[in-house]
Every structure is written in structure tokens, then in C-alpha cells.
């Protein structure tokens, strides 16, 4: 069975909870190799998504993701705002007007999101950014679709696990994009905050299923 607009709204609600819980952790990660605002930024954005969705859940999964996208764009700022905003916007667009999102649609949406982030931010694998969580997530989602077919839960779970692993792998990387790149070699040895938040969000979405 696929996800309805209500399901996605619920999942975003869950993601907001997880981000709030990890606000300090994300701040601390960003404090180490950035400017210390990532947790605050993401929390501000997801809190805004929840209160927007409380007013009214739009019709269809694509419309919900689009509302999340515009909310992130207008509330987050920083690097993460436009990048996550683009990710959600591209994912929304990829869904079109479907009533329910199935497993393959999840994989397609994730790939669209990744492509959007890369189009905006120009980061490639190994640059120590959220892209390093998204690339393995997309690959795992697509593989899961190949194996399990249409099961949203399995696709999301695979993506989340891969994103978590991908985020961990950023620890050893030297940043080449974003604020951490100013540190050069000194950026190695730290987890990238954006990769971590990507893994947290995907984890929450998978859990919410």
C-alpha cells in the first residue's frame, strides 16, 4: 500500500520531532566545522512545516511535499534552506498528481531530490555534504525497488540505513564544499551536519511508516 497525503504529513511531523530532539547535536556538529546554526535552522524549518500542515493538509503527496519545500525555502535560510528546499521541490514535482506514493515513486523522488541538490550546490560524492548521505540512499532505494517491488516501507528503510552509513562515512572526508571547506584538512575527523540531518530525516520517515 502506498502513502497518502495524510501519511506524508504524519511522517513530516515525525521528522520534525526527530530534528527537534537532535537540535543540539546538529548545532554541535556544525559548531565543530561550520558556524553552529544547522540544528537551529533545521528545527526552525521543520517546526514551520508542522504548523503549516496543522492549518490544512493539501491534496495529494506531491502537494504536501511542495508545501514543505516552500516552507523550508522561506524559513530556513543558510545553505541548508535552499538545498533542502530544492530537494523537497524536485521530489514533489517528480510525484506529479498521484494520490498515493508507492515504493518506486519513493525511489524516483529521492533521485530527483539528489539531482536537485547537486544542481544547486554542485557538490559531488566525497565533498563531505548532505550529498554523501543522499547518494547511497538513492542507490539503496533503487536496489530495494528492484528486489521488493512496491513496498514503501522497505524502500524507505533501505534508503534510511544507507543514508546513515553514508553520513558516518563523511567523518573521514576533507570538505570541499560549504563552510567546512574553509578548514581544509582540519575538517577531517568530524561528521558533516547536513549529512547527519539527511540521515535523521530519512530515518524518521522510514520509522513513521
Amino acid at each position, binding site marked *: 500500500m502506498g502513502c497518502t497525503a495524510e501519511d506524508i504529513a504524519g511522517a513530516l511531523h515525525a521528522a520534525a520531532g526527530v530534528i527537534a530532539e537532535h537540535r543540539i547535536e546538529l*548545532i554541535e556538529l556544525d*559548531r565543530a*566545522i*561550520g*558556524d*553552529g*546554526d544547522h540544528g*537551529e*535552522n533545521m528545527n*526552525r524549518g521543520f517546526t514551520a512545516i508542522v504548523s503549516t500542515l496543522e492549518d490544512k493538509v493539501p491534496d495529494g503527496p506531491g502537494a504536501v511535499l511542495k508545501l514543505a519545500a516552500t516552507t523550508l*525555502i*522561506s*524559513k*530556513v*535560510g*543558510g*545553505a*541548508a*534552506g*535552499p*538545498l533542502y528546499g530544492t530537494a523537497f521541490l524536485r521530489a514533489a514535482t517528480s510525484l506529479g498528481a498521484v494520490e498515493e506514493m508507492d515504493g518506486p515513486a519513493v525511489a524516483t523522488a529521492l533521485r530527483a531530490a539528489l539531482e536537485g541538490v547537486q544542481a*544547486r*550546490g554542485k557538490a559531488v560524492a566525497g565533498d563531505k555534504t548532505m550529498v554523501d548521505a543522499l547518494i547511497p540512499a538513492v542507490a539503496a532505494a533503487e536496489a530495494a525497488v528492484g528486489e521488493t517491488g512496491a513496498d514503501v516501507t522497505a524502500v524507505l528503510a533501505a534508503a534510511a540505513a544507507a543514508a546513515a552509513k553514508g553520513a558516518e562515512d563523511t567523518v573521514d572526508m*576533507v570538505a*570541499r*564544499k*560549504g*563552510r567546512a*571547506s*574553509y*578548514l*581544509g584538512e*582540519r575538517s577531517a575527523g568530524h561528521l558533516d551536519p547536513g549529512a547527519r540531518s539527511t540521515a535523521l530525516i530519512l530515518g524518521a520517515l522510514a520509522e513513521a511508516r
Partner: protein
Amino acid sequence: MKKIINDPSTVVTESLRGLAAAHADLVRVREDPAVVIRADAPVSGKVAVISGGGSGHEPLHSGFVGRGMLDAAVPGAVFTSPTPDAVQAAVEATTGEAGALLIVKNYTGDVLNFETAGELAAADGLDVRSVVIDDDVAVADSTYTAGRRGVGGTVLLEKIAGAAAERGDSLDVVETLARQVIGQVRSIGVALAAPTVPHVGTPSFDLGADEIEFGIGIHGEPGRERIKAEPAEALVTRMLDAVVEDLPFADGDRVLLFTNSMGGTPPIELYLAHGIAERLLAERGITVARRLVGPYITSLEMQGISLTLLRLDDDLIELWDAPVHTPALRWGV
């Protein structure tokens, strides 16, 4: 953390209210999204000059709104670039036929958010252009970084572009001048002690009692290198060498020397550093034709300074000297 605030999440808005109350003759403030607008905007027939970025660097940018400088400033959350709709609101409030120049500091977030705002403005049929300033010599300008950061040079750029717009230059000319300034301005910063972001509550980085962060950014991002604390003479020499040799500035050049406090360094130390810098430049045969000394682009209460050099020509000097009337910079009025 001890700060004179009520709640970290309302600091920017509450501070802007104080700015509006203090300078009602110069600016008006819109909340949500937050925008600081020149009191008499839109000024008909004039190119609008707009800048913005994370808060916490005051007086940059909101303190530079007014006659002869910015038409609007877009303050984001503390150390967080503002969102496109805020930039769009600034454009709407200030921009007419003559178009607008957006002055963007080179940080991924600033570039992306202003880029989107520019697209929105273009969709509204407005002639809005952007320039990206990246004057910080501390960062290697390579494919291995997000590029050089925009720092002290931003203040000088805003003054000069604002003066050009005020004297009636077209957007083409204002943009060309802005790119000229960006091409010939260079900066370096150091930190002696870290700032504390209100919503974080602990210092942005930890420095040992005898350490200096050399090449610090203005967001408390760690710099490029940690050095041992050293006397002012050695530190200023090290800073100036980095700046002078980068462009490079040469014997015979006329420059503007901008000695900036990052916030927590008091005037007594700032002028001391400035005096050393003036002497060292004279020794190199570089003429300091204009100077600016003070806390103009800060990082909350961070202790440290930055040095900025801008190569001048007669037109830039005329634009620098032109009247300006803003909360933080005023002369000729």
C-alpha cells in the same frame, strides 16, 4: 552565556525594533520577513543597492541603510543567510525602472538564497543583478573550497556602490564599479576569543589561552591556521603581508586601509594595530589615502580584528568621499 536578550528566537526582530526607534529618520523596518528599508525608498530613478546576510555582524548591513549607501538590508537569523522571500521583499520595496544591485557575500547559503531571489525578481520583470564579494585571502580560492569568503571588503563595496547609485549612475555602471572594487580589495582577519551565538549558548570555538585563530571568518567558523599569540607588531605584520602579497599591492599604490574590530576588541587596541599598519604600508611605499577604523563588520562579541586594503583611483576616492547618512556611517551630511 549571558546576553542582554529576552529569547534567542526573537533577538533579531527585537533588535530591529530598537534600530527603527533609534533611526526613524533614516530607516523603516518590516518584520517577517525582516527587512530594513531606507526611509524614503523607493527613490525614483535611482538604482537600488541591496545587501544582506546573517545577523550578528552589525552594523553590517542594517546600519548601512540610508542615503548614499544601501536602499535595503536583509538580516537573516544570527549567522544564517536570509531566505529568498526576504530578499524579494527588499527588492519590492526599493526597486523601480533603474533596477537593483544585490551585494552578496560569498558563502554557499548567501549565494543560493540570493540566487533564488534574483530569479523571482527577474520573473517580476525587474532588472536585478548580483555581485559576489570574496575578499578574504585566508581561504584558498580553489575547487577544493567554497571559494573565498566575503568579509571586510563588503563595507567598502556597499559604500562605493551606494555612492555611485546615489549620484545617478546606471545599473551597468554601478555593477561595473562593484566588480572593480571586488577585483582590487583584499582582507584578512584574526580572532583572539570566540563569539557566542544566542541559540547555541557556548562559544563558537575553543581557543587556548595563548592561541590566535589566523584567517578567521566572520561567523566564528574556525580559521585556516592556529598560531601562538604574538605581539601586535608581529601579528599586524603577518596580516598585512598576507593581504599585500595576495593582490599584490605595490609600491606607488594608493589605498584605503580599513582596520576593523570584530566586536570585542576595544578601540585602544584597534588604533594601536592601525598605527602599526600605517607605518608598515608607508615602509612598502604604499600610500594610505583614505582610512576607516572601527567595528563595522563584526562577529557578535568576538575579540579580534581584520585588515582590508582597497586599491583606489580618483573615481573611487570621489565615491568614498561622497556624502553618506546611515546609522553607522555618516559624513558630508
